[in-house]
C-alpha cells in the first residue's frame, strides 16, 4: 500500500533510486546537492548496495560507466561545475549505449557562480553537453512527487533505450519538503541485457567500445544512434498544461520557474486575464507537438526561465513563427516571486491588447 510521507526533494530522489533498483551510487561533494550522496551513503548500506565517494566528478561518472557495463543500475549526482566535468563520461555512455542516471542540481553560473537555484544549464543538458553527435533524455521535475516518480522512470528509460538519462533540478527542487506517495517500482518490462560484461564463460567474448576508426562504420553507428533518438523523440515527450484551453497568453516554463509561473497564472486569472501555463517535463525530447497544438489557440507565448534565455530557442523552433514569443528571465540564481511574473503578464496583456 502506498503511503504518504513528508519528504525533502533530495531524499525523495535517493529513495526513488533505491526503490528503482539502483545498485550503485558514485558521486563527489558539491553544493547544493550534498544531501543526495549523504542520503545514499546511509541507505545503500542498509539495502546492500554500493555507495562510493569518488575522488572527482570525472572518476565518479566513470565508476558509473563501469558499473553499468557490468549490468547493474547505477547513478551519480552533481551540480553545474561538476556536471561540466562529467561531460566526457556522458559522451562515452551515449556512445557505448550504457544506461545510467545523472542528476544535475543546477546552480548559478557560469564559472563557480553561486549555489542558488538557476536554469543556466539548459543548453548543456539538452544539447548533449559532451563531444560528438548524441542526445540524452532530460527530465525537469517541478514537485517532490514528480521528482520521485521521474527518478523511477529515468532508470526504466535508461534501460529501455540504453542511454544516459539526466534529471535537471535546482537547489529549490532539492530542498523543498512536500508530502509524497512513496510508490513501489512500476512493472516495466526491461529487455534482457545481452550487452553486459559478465565474463566470457561458455560464450564468445564481448567488447564494450566506442572506438570506430573506419568513418563509414562510424557513420553507421551515428545513424543507428539517430534512429534510437528518433524513437525517443516520438515516445518520450511529457508536459503539463494548466488552463491552456482558453488562454490568450500562455507561459512556457519548466521546473522551479514553472511553479512560480503557475502562481502567477492563478493571480492573473483572479484578475480576469485568460492566461495559461505549458510546462515541459522532458526538455529533450522537447514537447514540440504540444506547443504547436497550443499555438493554434493562444495569441502570445511568454517564455519564463531562470536564465538569460535558452529554452526560448526551442520554443521558437517549435512555434515556427506562427505566434509571437516573448521572453522574461532572471539569471544568476535569482528566484522571482509569482507577483513579479504576474506583473510581466499584465504588462504584455496591455501592450499586446489581448
Amino acid at each position, binding site marked *: 500500500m502506498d503511503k504518504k510521507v513528508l519528504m525533502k526533494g533530495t531524499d525523495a530522489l535517493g529513495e526513488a533510486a533505491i526503490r528503482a533498483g539502483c545498485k550503485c551510487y558514485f558521486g563527489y561533494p558539491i553544493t547544493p546537492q550534498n544531501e543526495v550522496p549523504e542520503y545514499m551513503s546511509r541507505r545503500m548500506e542498509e539495502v546492500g548496495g554500493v555507495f562510493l565517494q569518488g575522488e572527482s566528478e570525472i572518476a565518479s561518472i566513470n565508476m558509473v560507466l563501469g558499473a553499468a557495463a557490468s549490468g547493474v543500475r547505477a547513478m551519480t549526482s552533481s551540480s553545474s561545475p561538476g556536471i561540466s566535468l562529467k561531460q566526457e*563520461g556522458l559522451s562515452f555512455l551515449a556512445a557505448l549505449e550504457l544506461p545510467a542516471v545523472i542528476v544535475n542540481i543546477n546552480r548559478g553560473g557560469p564559472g563557480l557562480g553561486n549555489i542558488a537555484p538557476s536554469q543556466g544549464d539548459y543548453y548543456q543538458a539538452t544539447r548533449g553537453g559532451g563531444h560528438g553527435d548524441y542526445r540524452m533524455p532530460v527530465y525537469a521535475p517541478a514537485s517532490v512527487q514528480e521528482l520521485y516518480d521521474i527518478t523511477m522512470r529515468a532508470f526504466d528509460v535508461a534501460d529501455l533505450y540504453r542511454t544516459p538519462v539526466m534529471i535537471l533540478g535546482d537547489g529549490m527542487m532539492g530542498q523543498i519538503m512536500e508530502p509524497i506517495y512513496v510508490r513501489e517500482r512500476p512493472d516495466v518490462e526491461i529487455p534482457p541485457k545481452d550487452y553486459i560484461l559478465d565474463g566470457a564463460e561458455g560464450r564468445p567474448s564481448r567488447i564494450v*567500445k566506442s572506438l570506430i576508426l573506419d568513418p563509414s562504420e562510424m557513420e553507421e553507428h551515428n545513424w543507428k544512434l539517430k534512429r534510437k533518438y528518433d524513437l525517443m523523440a516520438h515516445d518520450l515527450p511529457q508536459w503539463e498544461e494548466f488552463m491552456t484551453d482558453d488562454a490568450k497568453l500562455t507561459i512556457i516554463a519548466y521546473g522551479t520557474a514553472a511553479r512560480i509561473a503557475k502562481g502567477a497564472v492563478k493571480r492573473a486569472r483572479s484578475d480576469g486575464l485568460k492566461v495559461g501555463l505549458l510546462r515541459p517535463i522532458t526538455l529533450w525530447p522537447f514537447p514540440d507537438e504540444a506547443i504547436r497544438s497550443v499555438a493554434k489557440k493562444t495569441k502570445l507565448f511568454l517564455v519564463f526561465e531562470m536564465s538569460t534565455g535558452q529554452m526560448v530557442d526551442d520554443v521558437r523552433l517549435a512555434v515556427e513563427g506562427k505566434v509571437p514569443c516573448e521572453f522574461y528571465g532572471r539569471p544568476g540564481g535569482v528566484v522571482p516571486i509569482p507577483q513579479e511574473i504576474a506583473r510581466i503578464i499584465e504588462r504584455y496583456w496591455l501592450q499586446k491588447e489581448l
Partner: protein
Amino acid sequence: MKAVYTRPKSLKPVPNHYCPGCGHSIIHRLICELVDEMGIRGKIICIPPAGCAVLAYNYFDFDVCESAHGRGCAIATGFKRAQPDKIVFTYQGDGDMAAIGTAETLHAANRGEKITSIFVNNAVYGMTGGQMAPTTMIGQKTSTSPYGRRTDVEGYPLKITELIAMLPGAAYVARTSLATPAKIRDAKKAIRKAFEVQMAGLGYSLVEILSPCPTNWKVSPRDSYVYLEEKMEKEYPIGVMKDNTATKDTETSCFRKPS
C-alpha cells in the same frame, strides 16, 4: 607429438597491428597465457587504455570494456564494486596511468580497490606519435621535447609505481622489464601474483612493465631492447617493491630488490 608451445586460447588467432619490436604483443601473450593457465577466462574483465593498446580487444578473447583516456581505474572500480566476484584489470600506458589518469590511479590504489593494473611504461605517447610522457627519460628527445627532456622545463620522470607502493591500499607492487627472456618470465610471474592478490581480496595490485617503443624512440627493435636494459632500467629499477602476501617474492624469487 606433444605441443610445447602454442597460441594461448585466450589470444585471438589474428595478426596484430603493433610495430615490429613493440612490447605490447609480448605482454598481451603473457596475460593470455595466464588467463588460460589460471582458468579465469569466464571471470576476467579487461579495461584497456586510450593509446596503442586500446585495440587489445582485437586480441584478447575475453570481456573488454574500453575506457576514456586515464579513467581505467575508475571504471574498474565501478565494475568491481558492482561485481566483486569478477577479476578486473586495467591495461594502461604511461600517459594514461601517470599523467591524465594520475588521480584515478592513486585513489583506486589508496582505497585498496581489489583490481589489478598492468602499467606499460615505454616513456613516450605511442599512438599519438611519440610525444613526451610523464615517464620520458631526462634528456630523451621526443616530438614535444625536441631538445631533450630538461628537468628545469619539463620536470622529472614520474615514478608512479614507487608512489603507489607507499600506499597502504596497495598489496602488491612490482616493476618488471621485457629486456631479456628471463625478465619476460619474471614479468609473467609478477602478473600472476598480481591476479592472485586480487583474487585473494588483499587489495590493489600493480605490475609496471618497462617496454620498448622502437618506432617512437627512432631506433631499431634490437637497439631498443639494449636501451631498455642499459638506460631505462637505471632510471626505473626493476623488482618487487611491495608484497603483502604470505610468500613474499621480495625474499624468494629471482627478483632483486630495487636498489
